């Protein structure tokens, strides 16, 4: 089955990537852009049928590897 892990910088952490994209959008004429934050996500394909089990397992992966708890927070979602 497939699960997605969305990783974002914690709100308190400055996001240079987002800032540069926001500036670029404004120069491109999108004055209505107030702010941009950039994140990443991982689409993980794993064996097994049990959604609950998959979720715990992928959450574990996120803790261990996919997200950096010091500056990032994450959200896990199992796809139907």
């Amino acid at each position, binding site marked *: 089955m497939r699960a997605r892990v969305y990783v974002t*910088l*914690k*709100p*308190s*952490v*400055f*996001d*240079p990537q987002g*800032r*540069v994209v926001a*500036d670029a959008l404004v120069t491109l004429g999108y004055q209505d852009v107030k702010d941009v934050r950039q994140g990443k996500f991982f689409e993980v394909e794993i064996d097994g049928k049990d959604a609950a089990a998959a979720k715990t397992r992928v959450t574990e992966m996120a803790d261990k590897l996919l997200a*950096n708890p*010091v*500056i990032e927070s994450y959200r896990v979602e199992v796809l139907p």
Partner: protein
Amino acid sequence: MSVIDATVLERHGIKPDEYDRIVELMGREPNLLELGLFSVMWSEHCSYKSSRVHLKTLPTTGPRVVQGPGENAGAVDIGGGWCAVFKIESHNHPSFIEPYQGAATGVGGIIRDIFTMGARPIALLNALRFGSLDTALARRIFEGVVAGVGGYGNSIGIPTVGGEIVFDARYAGNPLVNVLCLGICRIDDIVKGAAKGPGNPVFYVGAKTGRDGIHGATMASAEFDERSAEKRPAVQVGDPFMEKLLLEACLEVLKTGAVVGIQDMGAAGLSCATSEMGSRGGCGMSIDVMHVPQRETGMVPYEIMLSESQERMLLVVEKGREREVEDVFEKWDLHAVQVGEVTEGSRLKIHERGKLVADLPNRALTDEAPVYRRPMQEPAWQQDVQRLDVGKLAVIDPADAFDRLIASPTIASKRWAYNQYDHTVGTNTIAQPGLSAAVVRVKETSRGLAVSVDGNGRFCYLHPYRGAMLAVAEASRNVACAGGEAIGGTNNLNFGNPERPEIMWQLGEAVRGIGDACRALEIPITGGNVSLYNETEGRAIFPTPVLGVVGLLEDASKVCTRMFKRAAAPVVLLGDNLGEIGGSEYLAVMHGQVCGVPPVLDLAREAALQKLIVRAIREGLVESAHDCSDGGLAVTLAECTFDSGGLGVTVEVPVAGDVSATLFGESASRIVVSTTDETLAALLAAAKAAGIAAAVIGKSGGDRIRLSVGGQVAIDRPVSGAEQAWATAIATRMKAKQ
């Protein structure tokens, strides 16, 4: 009534007697903001209160010194109206918490120190320490730090041309990330971080101010809204693009001549920049935090003043020329804003929307910070660890030892790391990473600058005074082996908790060693950095002073490298092979022991040796030169064959001590050179005149490394196999299972 009680003081890391001193200097009780300013400015990091008395003993003057310690970076005259501007900085603790960003922001900080002086940065070096690569934690930190160092320097376009990496369990919980930046500029173009001329406007430019890195001690301090406390991130994210804009814009702005003084906002942010510029210039400064660009809402003056947000600069501009300065920054899409002005007198006045919220003598924050002569005490264990009974060591086949040593991560090629560093950008790199000292040419001149960073924590642990001298000697010897005459040095003192007398003793002894060695080798120390409290669970790292030495080549085309250039070249050992294995990599790797006394160092002989090699290179008496350090003579000879296109070497040396000590002992003041039959006599004569032992020990050529000791072949290995093991050792370990 005052909000300041014992707990508040403790949160701010201010001792009661320090508080009394504050009240005395202020003539009244400080308010919380003022206390915050004192807490960061009087912190070990900013005030050097524990190390100052020792640093004062270092030699800082010399005919070439243009700028000694005290400014953002030091500078030495390299001739032709040019000067080399350089300094080393550490970012150890942040790199442990978040390796990539910790290392990246460390690089950013030292780069700012250099262009703040008006110099264009042209090279970066890094000295790194990690735990054993056999642990997943060390691999993770190593991977992140190297990526961070590269990620920042690469995108700005400053080549990372050299450094050193040591792996030892003692750094497992406390890696070291020391970064040296070298820049060049015309001597007349040097700028100082001083605020002069009352009435001159003070400008802020760069990244917006957030709640980053606000003094840990003040977290959750009750006087703040609880939310702001948890809003504070533990680490900062570097923005190399912003730094690149600042670098180019600042260098362009300085050309206008409209800038009176400039300073980057690093540790202690605005507090440090405003008070230091004021006291340096003998003026006061008045600012209103309302004008400071803010990234987050609801920031209080305390947070704005103490924030350590990266990539920010403070400038004092000549009144009436504001427009010129603003225009340059606009060109780079940076918006310089006036936050205040220089004032008569010597007070730092901070306002919030016009209301005075802090008012204090700026020198109280800087020059009048406390200075401690902390108690020093030689550790009880010091004598014990210096004991070494060679007779008791297990007998090991030198060939096996050789195989293990060249593949030991500390000795093996560091290309896994430096292949992630852009070292060709700038088209100045004429001796790339991997060739011992790095050499960058100075365009528009015939000159070159050789740079090396070195330190041996194991030596310093066994004998801090001698270990520190050996670090100076090695860095300077590496530079000399490239053809550079050492003209200036910088140092990074990485130690444990200075409140412990035995740590303080290590620091005192190390600084004494650095001073003595620098005086003997005529290397003025023009700056440096001190990083203390490098401990985990009360266990300190090895005392690790890292020396950065800059050397001058009048003729960059004469640059010398470590590899043999052709077959049948006579191989000569300059210096004495004393067979000292105390504190050697051999003892650590093959016998798991860190003990004995480090090699002796005769400073007069070292100086003579370095003068000799520099002259021999200048006069074309040698084809290659490589200093003997980690791994001793055997490893040094092997390194002369590596990257040479497979040229082997056959060498015969007499026994010194025993066979292992002869091959792997790390005696100082030795250099292996290769020469030609035509120049050999002249080389030997020059050595004799210099009073340096010089022995022809063999010839280059063949495709094997054959080393005989006392008539017995001790090591006989194909170059290809040895080189492969040496070149891939680290990459192989990095592929290991987690």
